[in-house]
């Protein structure tokens, strides 16, 4: 291939390429190129969100489980892409059986030309599954988690997706979820609730009626993760337009920016009011809450609507996290249930209030609101029941939780044989003991080299 030659296509317009062979056909083909480009850029950004999830989940948990969480994130992305190719896409966008389930295009058969759309949807699908990995961190068996991921990506999520985006019954009803507050986030969060219910809290989290603090080990990494997620979210929302619509896209980008910003501001202020301290990790969650909140209505609400949605999401989040943690005693290390579940519901319902067309506050009456409620309820019900059954099945052979001993020594050593940090200078192989305690010294000693001539 002589790149130089090909290049001239875009430099000198001598256009010897196949794509633009005939100028008369150019306009449709140009539009195809433009839209394709937009969707591909969005695909890259949504892919990159996995780095964000991985960093948030790693930073918000303990260092002894960091490798394990990273592996979960990589494997979720990888399994997600492959399974969505094999099965998920067909169920989601294949020919519909009564608006319930798609039934063709497995392995993209007879849909080869959908490939750009497929790859965008594939990175979306993995997102849904990865939400769970944060909530079940530090105690779920890797194998069980992977089996749950398989059920999410290959079945549970594509069904929901079919209902809403694949022309299924919720789409017919008029349910609005532009980029997935419900389809992606609430589905993931519901799966997370089920998994956390069945798993129980981490050792030492709830004891003698007390709720203990198990803080994350690297909040700056988590904060970077939030920035990456926010960055990727522009692709998540604006890519869902599927075309480079010069009116719609800037609107979506702006509502996304403003809602997230409002979420940051309200969670910062509200946490300050509530705890007399501006809680840093909750404010990071607040940014994500604002993003999840706007996802459903990003193309349908005004800039003021977006500000309001984000603002409320930030406050809801500050209320939801301690409530889930202390009252419901659902041990969710990264706050996934509050961020993706509570704010996902809020965002979906908010469309019924703020949609410029059909929203209650814009004179649209209650019908859209009712539809939005229906959608939320249906998705929760479906996901809850099926993921409950799936997990019960997965638990049959040997349970879904690591042994207490493995949990104490950390999943990094028990599942991966080494540890995440400074194995040459800090935390080598946790054995039968506490987190990194004492390992600093131990491992630096274990790995000291014999003295060298030069300095002896």
């Amino acid at each position, binding site marked *: 291939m002589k790149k130089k030659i090909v290049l001239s296509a875009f430099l000198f317009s001598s256009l010897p390429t196949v794509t633009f062979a005939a100028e008369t056909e150019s306009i449709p083909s140009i539009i195809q190129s433009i839209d394709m480009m937009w969707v591909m850029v969005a695909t890259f950004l949504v892919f990159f969100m996995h780095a964000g999830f991985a960093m948030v989940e790693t930073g918000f948990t303990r260092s002894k489980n960091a490798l394990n969480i990273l592996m979960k994130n990589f494997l979720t992305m990888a399994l997600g892409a492959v399974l969505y190719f094999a099965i998920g896409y067909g169920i989601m966008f294949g020919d519909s059986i009564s608006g319930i389930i798609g039934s063709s295009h497995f392995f993209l058969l007879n849909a080869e030309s959908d490939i750009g759309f497929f790859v965008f949807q594939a990175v979306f699908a993995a997102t849904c599954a990865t939400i769970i990995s944060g909530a079940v961190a530090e105690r779920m068996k890797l194998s069980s988690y992977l089996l749950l991921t398989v059920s999410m990506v290959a079945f549970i999520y594509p069904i929901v997706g079919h209902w809403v985006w694949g022309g299924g019954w919720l789409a017919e009803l008029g349910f609005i979820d532009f980029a997935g507050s419900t389809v992606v986030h609430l589905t993931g969060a519901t799966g997370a609730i089920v998994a956390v219910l069945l798993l129980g809290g981490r050792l030492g989290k709830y004891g003698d009626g007390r709720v203990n603090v198990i803080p994350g080990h690297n909040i700056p990494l988590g904060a970077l993760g939030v920035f990456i997620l926010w960055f990727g979210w522009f692709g998540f929302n604006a890519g869902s337009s599927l075309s480079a619509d010069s009116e719609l896209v800037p609107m979506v980008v702006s509502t996304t920016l403003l809602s997230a910003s409002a979420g940051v501001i309200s969670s910062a202020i509200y946490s300050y009011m509530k705890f007399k301290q501006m809680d840093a990790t909750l404010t990071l969650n607040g940014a994500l809450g604002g993003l999840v909140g706007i996802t459903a209505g990003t193309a349908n609400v005004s800039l003021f609507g977006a500000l309001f949605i984000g603002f409320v999401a930030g406050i809801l989040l500050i209320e939801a996290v301690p409530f889930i943690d202390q009252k419901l005693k659902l041990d969710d290390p990264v706050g996934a249930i509050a961020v993706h579940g509570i704010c996902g519901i809020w965002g979906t319902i908010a469309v019924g209030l703020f949609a410029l067309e059909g929203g209650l506050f814009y004179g649209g009456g209650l019908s859209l609101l009712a539809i939005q409620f229906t959608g939320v309820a249906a998705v929760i019900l479906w996901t809850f029941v099926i993921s409950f059954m799936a997990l019960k099945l997965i638990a049959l052979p040997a349970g879904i939780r690591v042994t207490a001993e493995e949990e*104490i020594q950390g999943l990094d*050593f028990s599942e991966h*044989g*080494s540890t995440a940090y400074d*194995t040459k200078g800090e935390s*080598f*192989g946790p*054995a*039968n*003991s*506490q987190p990194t*305690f*004492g*390992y*600093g*010294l*131990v*491992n630096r*000693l*274990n790995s000291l080299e014999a003295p060298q001539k030069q300095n002896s």
Partner: protein
Amino acid sequence: MKKIEAIIRPEQFQQLRIKLLEIGIDGLTVYEAAGCGKQRKKQGVFRGNPFELQLEPKVKVEMVIRKSLYEQTIQVIIEACSTGQVGDGKIFVSDVEDVYRIRTGENGTQAII
């Protein structure tokens, strides 16, 4: 006045602290340590290379106490920190000539706590 140095497993520390409080010992100083003894070594694997840990993490709890508390303290430490597995650690007892409280400058037994 005796100095008690207990080399224990890190995970037994909180329990020991609580038990010591119960017998009135609330002044103590703790150090991070690494130990090597008869305890069986742990194995790991990194990029396909197996490796062995030659040292185990330990904690040293150091407290200076009145002679009268000596027996009871030893008892409490053994109770709180023994798991029956090799590697539980040791207690060293030695003599202390004097103790000063930095804040006030007072010394002797009234400086201990």
